């Protein structure tokens, strides 16, 4: 399977008369874009903003991030979700780089939503602080979940994915500045030179904890709670087969943007044919019942063995209950003779003294650690807030609180905030961006 991603670098974003990309300047016709967003009748109010690195902007509650893309052959960029089912991972996709569409609630947030700062001390806590962002701030008529802590955010998230496709379309007939090529043939047809190298699978554990549909990550539009682990081609993940969900403390989240650009996959690709034979992806999940966890681990180890994998990398999109899947899967792989590296974040508490994962096993001897979800973060007021900052304190965001005897409320009258890393939007970057690690003190 061969995927060509044609890159167009966005250096600046402005509002103007016509949607276009010229000399690195992305121009968006705001009215046209908002009209397109409002085609979904659930969207009651919508506004568009631009947030670039260095801008004195804080966003809250952020719900999703998507890279604007288009497929020149007319296929949807998220098959089975924004368009008809079609094969992902093969052919040509165009991408607007250094650029993302962010979706922010105009008023209401929830457990799964987060914060992004575009400048100051808070900028470094998320990947999106360094991108040129098109920010959709909107409200919906989804009254049934307005005051729910767990929100599906369906209308808003879909609006983001659709808007990313709408904006990406402006480069459909253009020639990309550069093309990344991702090609991996059949696993048993790699040639003698490659087959001499140790073979490796990448095991992804995307979020699937909710029994009710509408919250979990999707694969080709199918809820991840309803799958048993299966083999996927890495190109499918890079090309829109996976869509992020709306459940879990958000620093652990893999945004759709993270799937589209998954650094772990790209790093394994880079080594392919040099130091490893990158077999492909085993797509697992994070269902809550113990039997489901054990079944998934059993499947993953069996598939790895059947494929003849010498090594594996396991990454989890979550912490707490999913730690059982993460550790269980690594143990199953090690027991099956597959040398395994894990990537995760930790929950060591505000004082750093708690056990890092809910379960531990000595077989997990090679872990890359990406941060502490419970680290306390205090940030000064920001000139501009997109969305409604009070959501952090009021709406049950995982890293915020209405009041605390010692710390006071998360959102103070002057606009300064105190929160746990839990609510930094995709802050722990377990998908592979993370420049953070954990140290003993």
């Amino acid at each position, binding site marked *: 399977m061969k995927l060509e991603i044609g890159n167009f670098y966005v250096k600046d974003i402005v509002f103007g008369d016509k949607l276009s990309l010229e000399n690195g300047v992305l121009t968006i016709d705001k009215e046209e874009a908002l009209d397109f967003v409002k085609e979904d009748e659930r969207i009651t109010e919508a506004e568009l903003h631009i947030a670039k690195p260095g801008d004195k902007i804080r966003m809250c509650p952020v719900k999703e991030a998507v890279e604007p893309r288009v497929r020149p052959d007319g296929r949807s960029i998220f098959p089975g979700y924004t368009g008809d089912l079609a094969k992902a991972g093969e052919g040509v996709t165009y991408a607007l780089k250094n650029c993302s569409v962010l979706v922010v609630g105009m008023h209401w947030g929830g457990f799964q939503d987060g914060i992004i700062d575009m400048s100051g001390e808070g900028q*470094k806590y998320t990947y999106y602080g360094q991108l040129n962002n098109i920010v959709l701030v909107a409200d919906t008529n989804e009254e049934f979940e307005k005051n729910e802590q767990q929100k599906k955010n369906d209308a808003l998230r879909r609006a983001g994915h659709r808007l990313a496709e709408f904006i990406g379309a402006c480069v459909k007939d253009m020639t990309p500045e550069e093309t990344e090529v991702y090609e991996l043939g059949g696993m048993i047809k790699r040639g003698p030179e490659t087959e001499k190298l140790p073979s490796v699978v990448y095991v992804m554990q995307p979020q699937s904890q909710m029994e009710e549909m509408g919250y979990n990550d999707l694969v080709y539009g199918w809820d991840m709670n309803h799958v048993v682990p299966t083999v996927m081609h890495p190109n499918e993940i890079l090309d829109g087969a996976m869509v992020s969900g709306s459940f879990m403390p958000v620093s652990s989240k893999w945004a759709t943007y993270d799937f589209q650009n998954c650094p*772990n996959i790209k790093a394994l690709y880079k080594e392919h044919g040099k130091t490893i034979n990158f077999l492909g992806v085993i797509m697992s999940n994070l269902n809550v019942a113990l039997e489901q966890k054990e079944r998934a681990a059993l499947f993953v180890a069996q598939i790895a063995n059947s494929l003849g994998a010498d090594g594996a990398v396991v990454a989890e999109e979550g912490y707490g209950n999913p730690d059982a899947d993460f550790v269980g899967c690594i143990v199953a792989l090690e027991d099956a003779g597959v040398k395994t590296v894990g990537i995760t974040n930790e929950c*060591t508490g505000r*004082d750093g003294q708690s056990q890092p994962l809910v379960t531990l096993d000595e077989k997990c001897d*090679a872990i890359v650690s990406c941060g502490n979800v419970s680290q306390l973060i205090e940030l000064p007021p920001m000139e501009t807030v997109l969305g409604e900052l009070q959501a952090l304190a009021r709406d049950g965001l995982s890293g915020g609180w209405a009041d605390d005897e010692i710390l006071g409320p998360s959102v103070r009258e002057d606009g300064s905030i105190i929160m746990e890393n839990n609510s930094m939007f995709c802050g722990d970057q377990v998908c*592979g961006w993370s420049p953070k690690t*954990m140290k003993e003190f």
Partner: protein
Amino acid sequence: MKKAILYVNQFFGQIGGEEQAGTAPQIHEGQIGPAMQFAKELDAKVTHTIICGDNYMGSNTEEAVAEILSMLEGKEFDIFLAGPAFQAGRYTVACGTICKAVKEKFGVPVVTSMNSETPGVNMFKKDMYILQGGNIASKMRKDVKAMAKVANKLLNGEPIGSADEEGYFARGIRHQVWRADGKPASERMVDMLIKKLNGEPFQTELPIPKRDMVPIAPAVKNLKEARIALVNTGGIVPADNPDHIQSASATRWGRYNIDGEEALKSGEYKTIHAGFDPAAADADPNVITPVDALKTLEKEGVYGSLHPYFYTTVGTGTTEAEAQRMAKEMIPHFQEDHVDAVIMVST
């Protein structure tokens, strides 16, 4: 200028060797022994040196600590230092004990140094900065420098780096940090993966503590002839606690003769364990050390015979390392008396 006070033992305090290890605490104005080098390295004046014999501190801990705390009463100091203690076992425990007490009483930062092979490390590393020290006194210069580096940061209100960077024993605290080189997780993953695949050494970013599982012993084959010993971590001791076993974080144990006794009598025995309500055990010590039942069963011929001593320490807060050491000290007594099995009562 800020002020510091240093604690050293009789040897480094230049009083004498082992024969002076019983020396009671004394405080001197100015700098004695290692204090002179600290004076050069510290961003503070070393105003006093406290000297105490290692045996005095070890055998009369409560008194020694109380005496030293009262010596410090009214003195101005911004930091308290002890050691470096190198590989001297008793000295490391003394340094940890006094640092912990001073920190709790006066609220000042404390810093000490000891070798990784000493009991003081596991007992106190969660309570204070303990620099990873050398094994012999010739490392004095290096160990003092390392202590002073951390002490100066504390004195100047600068952030203390990670355990690796500063060279202290990790205190069981894990925080996130931004790597100086910004190397993303994906590249760290690939590096680790390739090393692991190739059988090369690699460093995990989340060390998992080794679980020291002790397999359950096989059943006693012939109970009717077995000699049985009774051990407990519930702190049952003769009422005057003759071995001064600590009520928590114990480093001491004792064994008590029960030859000819039918049961442990309330008043003669009690618990000194600080981790549970002692009322029931004080009223009837046999609920923890069932001497009464064992004597009855011995008479009935259910098992062979009872070893004539029971053994006691306290389990609460006691480190695994200390527990292992104490067990190793008990074992020769069992072997000498041909004990076949031990009943281990925990609380």
